[in-house]
C-alpha cells in the first residue's frame, strides 16, 4: 500500500517499533518499583499517622488507598469483604488503572506533597532543567564542533593544547568536574553562590533583581555541563575532520587555493551526520542527563525533584519522572533514526531500492 512512499513507510516502521519499545518501557516503569514491594500506603501512613487516633487513621488510610487505586471502588464507594475490610486490587488492575490515568494525562498524586499532582510538581521543576540544559547543550555543541574542526584543520600548537585538554575534561566524570568547580569557585574564591537557582531572599518573578540573581546562580552549573559536552564534541569533530581532510577532494580544494572558511564549511557538511546524531541524543537525555549536576548545585530542576522524591520514597513521583526521562530519550532516538534515514546516503539508497520493487 505504501510502496510508492518509501520514506513514509520507513517513518511508520520506525514509529511502530518505538511505540512497541515505549509500551515495554511503561510496563517496566510500572512493575519494577513493585518488585521488592512493600505497600506504598504503609510508607506514607507511617509518616502521617503517628499522632492520629486509630479511627481517624483508618479513615485517612482508606482515603489514600482509594486515591492511589489500591482498593476496589464502585460508584465512589470502597468495596469491602464480609469483615468490612477493603478489597485490594491486584497488580494487573492497578496497571490497567495506571494506563487509563496516563492516557488522561494524570501521572497520579505525589505522596510527599499530597495532595499535589505529580504532573504539577514536574511542571514546576522542568523549566529550570530546560533553561539550564537547552542553551548549554546547543552552545556546547556549537563551540565543540567549531573548536574540533579548527583543531583538525590547523593542527599544530592549537591542536596540541586543545586535544589533551578536551580529552581530559570529557573523560572526567561529570559530577567530579561539577564538585571541583563548585569547591574552587564558590568556596575557595567565593566568586559564585554554591547552591540554588536564585538567592533565597528573592521571590521568583520577572524582576531585574531575580533575573540577575538567577543568572549569577546559573553560571557554575552551566560551565560544568558546557565544558564536558564541548570537550566531547570537539574530540569527535576533530577525528572526523582529520579523516575528511585526508580525502582527495579536500586535498584538491586546498591545492586549488580555496578559502579556509570554505573548506571548513565543507568539513562541517561532511562530518555533520554523526555530530547531529550526537546533538539529538544529548537533547533527548537533557531531562535526565544532568540529575547529578543539579543535585550538586542544589539547582531547583528535575534532578533535585527526583532527589527529594527518592529520599521520601515518593513512588508516584519516581515513576512520573522516570517515565518522562524515558519518553524523551525514546523521542530523541526516533528523531535520530529519521534524521539518519534522510541524511545518510546508504540508508537513502536503501529507501530508493525499495521504490523500485
Amino acid at each position: 500500500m505504501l510502496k510508492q512512499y518509501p520514506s513514509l513507510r520507513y517513518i511508520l516502521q520506525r514509529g511502530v517499533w518505538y511505540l512497541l519499545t515505549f509500551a515495554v518501557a511503561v510496563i517496566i516503569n510500572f512493575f519494577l518499583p513493585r518488585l521488592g514491594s512493600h505497600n506504598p500506603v504503609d510508607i506514607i501512613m507511617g509518616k502521617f499517622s503517628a499522632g492520629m487516633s486509630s479511627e481517624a487513621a483508618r479513615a485517612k488510610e482508606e482515603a489514600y488507598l482509594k486515591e492511589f487505586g489500591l482498593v476496589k471502588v464502585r460508584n465512589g464507594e470502597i468495596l469491602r469483604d464480609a469483615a468490612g475490610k477493603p478489597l485490594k486490587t491486584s497488580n494487573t488492575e492497578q496497571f490497567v488503572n495506571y494506563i487509563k490515568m496516563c492516557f488522561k494525562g494524570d501521572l497520579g498524586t505525589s505522596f510527599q506533597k499530597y495532595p499535589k499532582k505529580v504532573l504539577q510538581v514536574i511542571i514546576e521543576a522542568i523549566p529550570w532543567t530546560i533553561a539550564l540544559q537547552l542553551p548549554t547543550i546547543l552552545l556546547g555543541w556549537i563551540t565543540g564542533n567549531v573548536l574540533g574542526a579548527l583543531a583538525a584543520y590547523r593542527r599544530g600548537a592549537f591542536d596540541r593544547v586543545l586535544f589533551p585538554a578536551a580529552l581530559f575534561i570529557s573523560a572526567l566524570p561529570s559530577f567530579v568536574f561539577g564538585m571541583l568547580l563548585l569547591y574552587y569557585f564558590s568556596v575557595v574564591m567565593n566568586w559564585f553562590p554554591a547552591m540554588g537557582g536564585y538567592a533565597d531572599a528573592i521571590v521568583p518573578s520577572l524582576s531585574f533583581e531575580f533575573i540577575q540573581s538567577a543568572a549569577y546562580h546559573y553560571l557554575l552549573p552551566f560551565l560544568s555541563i558546557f565544558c564536558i559536552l564541548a570537550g566531547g564534541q570537539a574530540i569527535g569533530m576533530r577525528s572526523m575532520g582529520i579523516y575528511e581532510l585526508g580525502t582527495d577532494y579536500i586535498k584538491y580544494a586546498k591545492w586549488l587555493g580555496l578559502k579556509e572558511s570554505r573548506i571548513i564549511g565543507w568539513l562541517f557538511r561532511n562530518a555533520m551526520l554523526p555530530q547531529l546524531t550526537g546533538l539529538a541524543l544529548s537533547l533527548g537525555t537533557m531531562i535526565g542527563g544532568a540529575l547529578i549536576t543539579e543535585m550538586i548545585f542544589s539547582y531547583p530542576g528535575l534532578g533535585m525533584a527526583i532527589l527529594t522524591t527518592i529520599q521520601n520514597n515518593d513512588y508516584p513521583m519516581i515513576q512520573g519522572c522516570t517515565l518522562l526521562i524515558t519518553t524523551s530519550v525514546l523521542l530523541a532516538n526516533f528523531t535520530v533514526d529519521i534524521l539518519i534515514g534522510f541524511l545518510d546516503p546508504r540508508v537513502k539508497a536503501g529507501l530508493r531500492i525499495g521504490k523500485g520493487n
Partner: protein
Amino acid sequence: MKLLKNLLKSPMFVAGITLFLGTIILALIGPLTYPITLERVGSQYSTPFGRFFLGTDHLGRDYISLLLRGLRASLYVGFLAGTIATTIGTLLGIYGGFKGGIIDDMINMITNLFIVIPSFVVLILISGSFEDGRSLTLIGLIIGLTTWPWTARAVRAQSAAIKSKDHISLARINGDGTLLVLLKHILPYLASYVFMVFILQVASGILSEAAISMIGLGPLDSISLGTILNQAKNNGALGDGVWWAFIPSTIMITVIVFALYLINTSAEGVFNPRLRK
C-alpha cells in the same frame, strides 16, 4: 606474549595499568596494614593532617578507613557489573551473530529495546524498590544486567563478520560442533575486542554505582566511594568547604576511571592493526 610486549611498549598502557594495579593493591593491602575502624573516633569534621591524616566525617569517623573500604566496594561493583555485562553480552552476541535466524532476531530485538530504554532509569526503579536488602552485590548485579546490550550489539557485528571466514568452514568440515566453533574459532578472534569492552564496562560500572549512590539509592550494607560523596553532600560538606569530605574520594574515582580509559585507548592502538590484518 608478543601482544603483551607490544602493550608494554605503549607508555599510555603502562601508565594506565600501573595506576589501576595501584588502586587494586591499595584496596587489598590497605586494610591489612592500616587499622580500619568505622566507629566514631574523633569530633565532627576534624581537619586533616592532625590526629587523622585525612580528617573525619560528620559522624567523627576516620576518613582513611572509610576510603579504603569505599575503594574496595567500588572496585568490587565495577568488576561484578563488568563481568556480568561482558559475559552476557559476549555470549549472546557471538551466538546471535553466528547462528542468525530467528534466535538472532529475538536477541537483536531485546538488545535494541534495552539500548534505547535508559539503563539509569531502570537502575533507579529497581534500586528504589529494594528498600531493605539493597546490597552492594545487588547493585552490581543490576548494573551488569542493564548494561549488557551494548556489548551484545558490538560483539554480534564482529561475530557475524567472522562467521563467513574460511577457517569457520574448515572447522565445521573437521566436524567441530557449534559450541567448539564459538569458543575455539570465533571467541579468540574477538578476545582483544571483548577485553576492551570489559575495561569500559568496569569503568562505567564504577561510575554508575557512584551516580546511583549519589542520588541516595546506594548500597545499604557497605560504604562505597559514591556513598561517601552522598553523605558529604547531604551533610553540607560541599557548601561549607569541608574539602576532605569529597576531594579524596573524587580523586580516587577519577584515577580509577582514567586508568581504565588509558588502558582501553592504548590497547585499541595495539590491537587494531592486527584486527585490520
